[in-house]
């Protein structure tokens, strides 16, 4: 099959993008615990946050409960064990011994989206700190009114560099690196904010999930929240594809860019001009809301919840059209961002941690979502909700996972201090490598029946 595709590509029957997408999808589907690559963890506590930088896709930033944050090079190993096990040691570590280190657990560590010169850590010691990567010094810090659960920076922002922070306080605060001040305090939640996510399509849109079970959408250019997701407001299935002609498979990968741009365009126009556009029903609700509720939403609308219990994790798909949310009710929900409706995808039974922010991961063609389910990570098919597979390897609760689009690798961090690498396993390839390196090994991994 692989060879067929290669041949098709050679003949020009298969277009480059589709070829690439197929290869990515195949690799993503074959993830397994990597024996060739491992991170030597410098942390003495649970790993709470993982992110690979957005510019090079090379540096993994991890934040842990012992107040330490570390940076790993995921491409170049620091040393090799037994000939083929690449060990990646941290290339940068800030911990409690550091003069400006966090006193308590780091709950989130994120890269500055524009380059790898800065990163941001949020901690339970009520501080958000901005670090210079090269000098490992704190450039700036922001004191929050409570434990900081999460921090997020917009991956697509070009006009602002705001750190959105969610803390035990009810307000979302936006910290401006340029000025060192809070530019916004967004009030609306009735409890602490566990998760934050910037829209992948508009740099002004921020989504927040709180302990009160609500997911709120904020347009940071305007006052107040403009949408509260309601789990009872639903639409059946995903949006019908815009281009009826494109087949299902094609849709997933080719839709990405065109729709995302269009939808952001839609959003922008809708927000600004309130021009009726797409479907009627949507339009009606939209108009209804805008007329009656904004800027102060009606109480019924304002009280809508998306989960029973806290919203512990939020993740948008790469194309910015869908939002995944996990809650302490052990449910995963897929929301259509455009319509604000629950898509009613029934994700199979899972059990989630309740007291901690979770970091979900989605493949870049939104086909799989990786969810930390207690001590394992489960991959669900995004559209059907079926369990694709479970990744077992951690010995304690898993807190975060990050899917690296560039290498199609999954990184997971857990309470057992480990950061595990799940990489595409291609048996033929590894066998070949094994054969090359077998000579130097002490004990070959073969059948050994003595009797």
């Amino acid at each position, binding site marked *: 099959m692989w060879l067929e595709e290669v041949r098709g590509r050679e003949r020009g029957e298969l277009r480059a993008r589709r070829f690439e997408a197929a290869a990515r999808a195949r690799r993503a589907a074959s993830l397994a615990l990597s024996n060739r690559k491992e991170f030597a963890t410098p942390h003495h506590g649970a790993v709470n946050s993982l992110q690979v930088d957005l510019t090079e896709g090379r540096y993994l930033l991890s934040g842990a409960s012992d107040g330490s944050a570390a940076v790993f090079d995921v491409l170049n190993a620091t040393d090799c064990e037994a000939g083929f096990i690449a060990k990646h040691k941290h290339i940068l570590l800030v911990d409690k011994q550091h003069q400006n280190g966090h006193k308590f657990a780091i709950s989130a560590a994120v890269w500055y989206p524009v380059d790898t010169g800065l990163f941001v850590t949020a901690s339970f010691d009520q501080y958000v700190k901005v670090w210079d990567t090269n000098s490992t010094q704190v450039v700036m810090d922001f004191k929050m009114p409570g434990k900081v659960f999460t921090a997020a920076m917009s991956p697509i922002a070009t006009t602002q560099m705001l750190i959105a922070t969610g803390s035990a306080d009810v307000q979302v605060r936006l910290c401006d690196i340029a000025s060192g001040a809070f530019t916004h305090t967004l009030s609306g939640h009735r409890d602490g904010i566990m998760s934050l996510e910037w829209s992948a399509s508009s740099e002004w849109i921020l989504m927040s999930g709180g302990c009160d079970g609500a997911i709120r959408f904020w347009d940071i250019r305007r006052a107040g929240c403009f949408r509260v997701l309601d789990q009872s407001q639903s639409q059946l299935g995903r949006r019908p594809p815009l281009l009826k002609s494109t087949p299902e498979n094609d849709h997933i990968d080719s839709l990405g860019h065109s729709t995302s741009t269009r939808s952001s365009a839609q959003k922008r126009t809708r927000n600004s001009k309130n021009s009726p556009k797409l479907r009627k029903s949507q339009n009606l609700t939209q108009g209804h809301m805008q007329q009656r509720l904004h800027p102060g939403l009606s109480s019924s609308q304002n009280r809508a919840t998306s989960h029973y219990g806290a919203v512990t994790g939020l993740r948008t798909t790469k194309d910015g059209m869908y939002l995944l949310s996990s809650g302490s009710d052990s449910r995963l929900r897929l929301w259509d961002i455009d319509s604000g409706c629950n898509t009613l995808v029934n994700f199979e039974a899972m059990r989630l941690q309740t007291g901690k922010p979770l970091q979900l991961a989605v493949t870049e063609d939104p086909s799989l979502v990786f969810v930390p389910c*207690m001590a*394992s990570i489960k991959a669900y098919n995004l559209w059907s909700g079926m369990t694709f597979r479970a990744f077992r390897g951690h010995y304690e609760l898993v807190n975060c996972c990050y899917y690296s689009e560039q290498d199609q690798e999954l990184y997971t961090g857990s309470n057992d201090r480990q950061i595990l690498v799940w990489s595409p396993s291609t048996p033929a390839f590894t066998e070949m490598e094994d054969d090359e390196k077998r000579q130097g090994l*002490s004990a070959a991994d073969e059948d050994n029946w003595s009797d």
Partner: protein
Amino acid sequence: MPRSTVSSSFAGHRTPAAEAEMGSNPSSSAAAAAESSMASLIERATSTTAPAVDPVLLRAIKSSGRASDGAIRDAFHLLLSLMSKPHSHVRLLAFSVADELFMRSKLFRSLLTDALDGFLPLAVGFRRAHPLPPPAASAGLLRKAAVQALERWHHLFGAHYRQLRLAVEYLKVSARVQFPGLRATVEARAAREARTQEILTAKVEQLRQSLASIKAEIRSTMDEIRNGLEIIRAEYEKFEGYVNDDDDAEQEIASLSMRSIRMASLMAGEWLPETQENEAVFDALREAYRLLVSKHLVTVQEWISVLVRVNLQDNRFRDSALKEFIDVKNEIRAVRDRCSELGLDLDNVRRRKGDQEEEDDEFWVEGNIEAPSPAKVQSSVDVASTSRDTGKGKKVVGGVKSDIGKAPVAGNGTRNLDPEKSKLFAEAPVVPWSSVLDRWGSSGDAHVNQRGLELESHWGRVDNDAVIPAAKIAELNVHSSVYREAPVEILPCHAPLKKGGLCQRRDLKVCPFHGPIVPRDAEGNPFEQHSGSFGAEVDPVEHCDIRGNSNELNGNRDGDYMEEASSSRMTDISNDYGNIAGTHDLGNVTVELARQAIKNVRKRDMDHKARERAQRQRIRQHNEDVLREAAIASTSYSAAAYEQPPESWGRRGRRGKAKAPTLASMLKKKVTSKDRIAERLLNTRATDATIREASHDEDMSYREAFPNQW
């Protein structure tokens, strides 16, 4: 959590895997049979109470596993489900089977490592929420076996399975499970071995160069000794030639027996061919001998041990060198033996010479011993010395002291001294030795620095002429003595015993069995007892009084009272006897009798008190019994706690005896005698506590006030 997820995932795994297996080879019924046989084999292997898996079954399992992959998969799923059983022994057996398969089958390894995060908690039990199930003994074994196996797996296959590395790291660092570290110790030992081998090889290389020189050196030393011996021998023969007439001179004796005799005589006497002329020879000999024994012999032995231990590729040099060294060693031994055989124990010779010099120094002492003393009678050296030298004050004091120490001996010894001296000896005080004796009799001032040493002090100048005034010294020398109790012999009771013989208890005044201690004759009769014929003259009033007393006491301890009565009667008798005897006897007897009378009165008083106390005790006992019965009767619960229902005991015992041990029986807690005693104690304690609780409050004051019957 882990157990439930594990079991569910196992259940989930199992069917699809089996289906896949069936799908992959649907035709072969043989494979299915193998699977079923595998399942049944494992079932049989793990459902025993035996401490280990039956090796026959294990071999069967292995052979069927070797036959097909399907059997391996089947075994894997079955073993996982067995590992989640709440019985440690089943888990232990399952684990040992899994270990065997893991070491052999790659497929099994890949299957197990994927499920390792569920498997390990079941085998090691490191999660606090899910400890290993009972029985505890098997659980301990399982944990140990699992940790050991994991270490072995990690060592052998860790490079291929990230899961194994993770598991070991997690157990070591996070769960803090102690690994036996067998591998590490083995490796450390190997490393040590290698290092010593390296050193040894280097040494052997060094030896290769220096072997000839070492040998030459030893040879030369031995030659020197031989030459020396030759010279001495020659000289000796010469010497023997002209001292033949000397009475105790040695003789050169050829025969061995005579030589040994001569050796013995050499030990005692003096073998002295060493004179001014041959001293140089002897010195040289001694030097060479010491060199040979203390250096060369040791070196040779060291080299031999090195050569024995070393491991070389080329053993030729080693063997030849070893042979040579052994030869050299034997030669050295031979030389040494020859030296000692000839009586030339050269170390001894040297020492003997030293002794000689010392003896010269001590000539005065010797003379002292043999010097004739004026008092020829005494054999005691001490006394002799005192009597002899009177010049030194110190010596005199020492002599006096020794005399004081053994006063009786001195007494005997001084019988023949002049009368004045003996008188003085008689009245001399016996004092323990102390520094006081240094200045006995002198009453002058004493120098502080009496030894006349030149002292430098840190604390300032020293006044060398400082003097302690005599008054002060007298004050310091005031005698003190510790009171020593004169040993008192406590006489035995000597009352006749029923089984014959006399009571040997030694009490000061009263024997607890036979009453006051009185002087008795050889049969144990008290000396006063022979006046028993006066029994008819018992005071009737006294007797009646006692009787009445005993009647008062409910008469339930008649024997006791009889005894008491008789004893009191006896004292009365003696009293009477005293009266009679007093008329025609001395005051001595009256004193005795008066003492006896006082004793009698006291005893009666004490008896009365004891009786009262006993009475009160009995009443209290009775009351408590009543209360206890009432309390028990009031609650059936406490009654149940008080006594185990007997049938339960019976049943338990019967089952334990009749049935063969099963896996289920291993789980049951064994009731040991310790448990039973603990339970009993607990029960009685509990009931006592409740009774006390119940009765205490309202009754306490009343009972204390009126210790009567209710």
